[in-house]
């Protein structure tokens, strides 16, 4: 406390002294007969020199940082097929902009230095020059057309890869604050999923006949609980409102789940059985086309695999995609970099809340054989369900909660 007061006093005193000092300087200048707007020749030359120095400083920093950071060891090593083209394009762009940057800065600062004020000289009255202006409109235009052309070729390659019948489809699913991946299994199709089907043991909301029954039972139980809570009167208005909202949402959810239940006859919902759901770490086979299907549970996230030159937003309510092919296994990359602990990562690159900075998943790229082995060892979605499948869904349902559904259902 005393420290703070002392600090404030010191600051105030400093300001007051500075005011006094400034006044003295101003008076001294006045006595010397210097106008307040006048800039002496030595001051002017000094600044001109500093401008020249800053050119040295700026280009020095540029070359130093390039030397230190612009090479594969510190930049991201590439590990995907389209990434090769992307990196070439980046390098081309980098060279072009470096040249433009250096030339412009040199001219700017050199002119500023060279044409510093001189009593004996008079500035030129040089207001325009059509030829010059045409040249420097056309020149950048040509360079840009060239860059656009190159860029769009790579863009198309990246976004519209050839269709590969042997591709592996993986769902990447984001939520605050972790990633979940789902492999499509033997049938090469991901089972249907819906956000109303989400529960603690079914993060992705995969729809199978069993999960529907379980979800319905659970929701009805929740609803009954809410109803019994709402029977009491609440002094706390806010809490009461929250419970009402929760109840409304639960009814909505139950309705949607019932809709799925009604569809079981036609749609079966069995494609999800052989899916494999994983968190924290996944393996990918090398040299195989991988199609990511991306969904989000709550807010926007961004699926970012820096080493594969892959990034795509993960958007609630919309499915996005990205197709790529890893070409370097983790083991190879570790050798290449000389870092035995290196791992590929999946990061979140769109701010999504407090733990956004730590939302990651480890990616291991295996040879096809290793990957097959790894895949065999994974539990399918159905296997994960097994122990509980036998629980009859009606057992947990309170009789009085059922009518509520229909009551709130206008249909």
């Amino acid at each position, binding site marked *: 406390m005393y420290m703070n007061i002392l600090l404030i006093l010191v600051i105030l005193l400093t300001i007051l002294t500075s005011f006094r000092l400034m006044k003295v300087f101003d008076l001294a200048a006045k006595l010397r007969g210097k106008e*307040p707007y006048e800039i002496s020749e030595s001051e002017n030359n000094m600044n001109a020199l500093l401008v020249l120095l800053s050119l040295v400083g700026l280009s020095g920093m540029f070359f130093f940082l390039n030397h230190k950071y612009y090479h594969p060891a510190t930049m*991201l090593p590439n590990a995907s097929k389209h990434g090769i083209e992307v990196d070439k394009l980046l390098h081309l762009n980098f060279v072009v902009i470096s040249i433009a940057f250096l030339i412009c800065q040199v001219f700017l*600062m050199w002119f500023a230095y060279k044409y510093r004020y001189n009593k004996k000289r008079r500035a030129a009255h040089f207001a325009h020059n059509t030829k010059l202006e045409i040249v420097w409109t056309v020149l950048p235009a040509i360079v840009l057309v060239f860059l656009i052309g190159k860029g769009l070729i790579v863009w198309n390659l990246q976004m519209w890869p050839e269709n590969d019948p042997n591709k592996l489809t993986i769902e990447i699913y984001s*939520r605050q604050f972790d990633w979940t991946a789902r492999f499509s299994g033997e049938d090469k199709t991901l089972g249907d999923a819906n956000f109303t089907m989400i529960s603690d043991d079914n993060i992705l909301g995969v729809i199978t006949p069993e999960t529907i029954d379980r979800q319905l039972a659970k929701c009805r139980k929740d609803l009954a609980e809410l109803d019994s809570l709402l029977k009491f009167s609440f002094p706390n208005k806010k809490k009461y409102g929250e419970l009402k909202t929760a109840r409304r*949402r639960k009814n909505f*959810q139950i309705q*949607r789940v019932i809709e799925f239940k009604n569809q079981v006859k036609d749609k079966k919902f069995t494609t999800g059985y052989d899916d494999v759901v994983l968190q924290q770490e996944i393996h990918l086979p090398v040299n195989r086309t991988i199609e990511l299907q991306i969904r989000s549970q*709550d807010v926007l996230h961004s699926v970012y695999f820096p080493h594969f030159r892959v990034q795509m937003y993960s958007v609630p309510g919309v499915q996005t995609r990205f197709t790529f092919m890893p070409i370097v296994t983790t083991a190879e990359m570790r050798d290449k970099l000389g870092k035995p602990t290196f791992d590929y990562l999946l990061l979140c690159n769109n701010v999504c809340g407090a733990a956004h900075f730590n939302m990651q998943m480890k990616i291991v790229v295996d040879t096809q054989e290793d990957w097959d082995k790894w895949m065999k060892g994974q539990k399918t979605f159905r296997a994960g369900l097994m122990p509980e499948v036998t629980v009859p869904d009606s057992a947990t349902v309170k009789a009085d909660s059922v009518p509520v559904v229909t009551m709130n259902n206008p249909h």
Partner: protein
Amino acid sequence: MSDMHTTHVDSHTKDHHDHVHGHDEHHVHKDSFITKYIFSQDHKMISKQFLITGMIMGFVGMMLSMFFRMQLGWPNQPNPILETFLGKWAPGGIMDPNFYLTAVTIHGTIIVFMVLTAGLSGTFSNLLIPLQCGARDMAAPFLNMLSYWFFFISSFLMLISLFVETGGASGGWVVYPPLSALPQAAPGSGLGMTLWLFSIVAFVVSVLLGGLNYITTVVNLRTKGMSMTKLPLTVWAFLITAILALMSFPVLLSAGLLLIFDRSLGTSFYLSDIFVSGQALEQTGGSPILFQHLFWFLGHPEVYIILIPSLGITSEVLSVNSRKPIFGYRAMIASLLAIAFLSFIVWGHHMYITGMNPFLGSVFVFTTLLIAIPSAIKAFNYITTLWRGNIRFTPGMLFAIGVVSLFITGGVTGLVLADSALDVNLHNTYFVVAHFHIVMGVASMFGTFAGVYHWFPRMFGRMMNNKLGYVHFWLTLVGAYGVFFPMHYIGLAGVPRRYYNYTSFEIFQGFADINQVISCFAFVGGSAQLIFFFNFIYSAIKGPRAPKNPWNSTTLEWTAPVEHLHGNWPGEIPTVHRWPYDYSLPGREEDFVTQDTPLTEEETKQLEDYKHP
């Protein structure tokens, strides 16, 4: 050479608008304290209000950045400074992750809107449009006053949002829903976000009232002889900025309103299929991407709304202090217009990887790279303006040269980002942070400083101290490049922005030291601003008196007396005879000829010859 300048002394001496204002009687009014300093309708006073409010907000924005730079440089290390200033947001001196996000969010919002939009346009459009056009005041002084007070309300709301229990908005300055729409998803999306939204609503109102005034004044209240092609480039820049603002800010307002509806009325414009904190939300059918389209439809023009006034100021300051006409006056106007037009059709470059159709992405690549052409023209013209000049390094001039340097550095990296194929890996990394801070943040900040140093004598009738100005400039330049230049390389290594720390990633360990270096540069740059604040306050109160035209400038604002008059000129408004860049005309003793100096006989003859050869 002589035929070169005559082309500019040309045209439109015919249009004799007679601006008879009822303003002259204002001189007799005695203003009370309240009408003079608080609810003032005088454009010069309103301009100061904008500037000072902008500076206060700028200080807050800067302090927030100092705090998060401490966190980024020395993550997880107790810091007594943070503990003292942030209290419960930094328990034990370690910053709370939610507060980190709030800090970057409010920092961005304050700098982008309160400082570089209102603080910059509000200050200099208000000061210079009437004075440089030769008008007694804005077209609608009352609306002008309202514009300031809405800005004040907006700033006030933004500040108090930092102090609410659950913390300020924390979704980044772009406030993408659903994060910003769901209080369950982040504490900052509660009351803090509500205040953010209302602050922005007030802000849009302020911008629109101001913009209407700027446009009307430029179009209608130019003095006799002041044709559009005799306007200083500053006024052109403010005019184009105001048009951009008028066309784009309403879209932000609608984006914000829909977000307010989603937050409180249960609509689903931006929400669909969301499961959060154990509940499935009923909202379905909306799309978060809609918000991004609306936001960036404002957002991209907004970045030019920030930059263009700075470029206008730079044009003026460079020309005055090189004692040379600005090179390519018409090309400068044309490129401003081109940039303004194109800025409405490039917004998609912020959204290449949102799942947008790749073909649409290609279109945005094309339009985005087009915008680089007029930008390049401007840079080249600035450089040529210096060529064979006779340069006087006032602090304003140094900042103007700084603007050009930064505009080049930040502009070229835009080309990389514009290439969608490259943006895939660079989006939301520090490369983007480096790009836009240099080209927009720092460049515009430099433009603002150039303007303050240059027009301070016009605003306060006193001079700022040059020596302190030099120290301020050089430290700020070193700070700015030192902070943002290395960030490019961090970005190229794939380091994401808006991360609270990087300690949990082995692949980013190599950048811990560079983050400390950056933070140190930030502290240098930050402290330099204290010198500026001191210089500003001291000079406003005690600085030496300024003469009427300290920089030997040609434009009309320097023909008005130093004393503040409501109505600007005591007698008749000066008539304009020539363009604003008659510097170093051959055959004259003085190296500048003010705009209200009639043409000599010889010049008139040359003009006639030019018109009827």
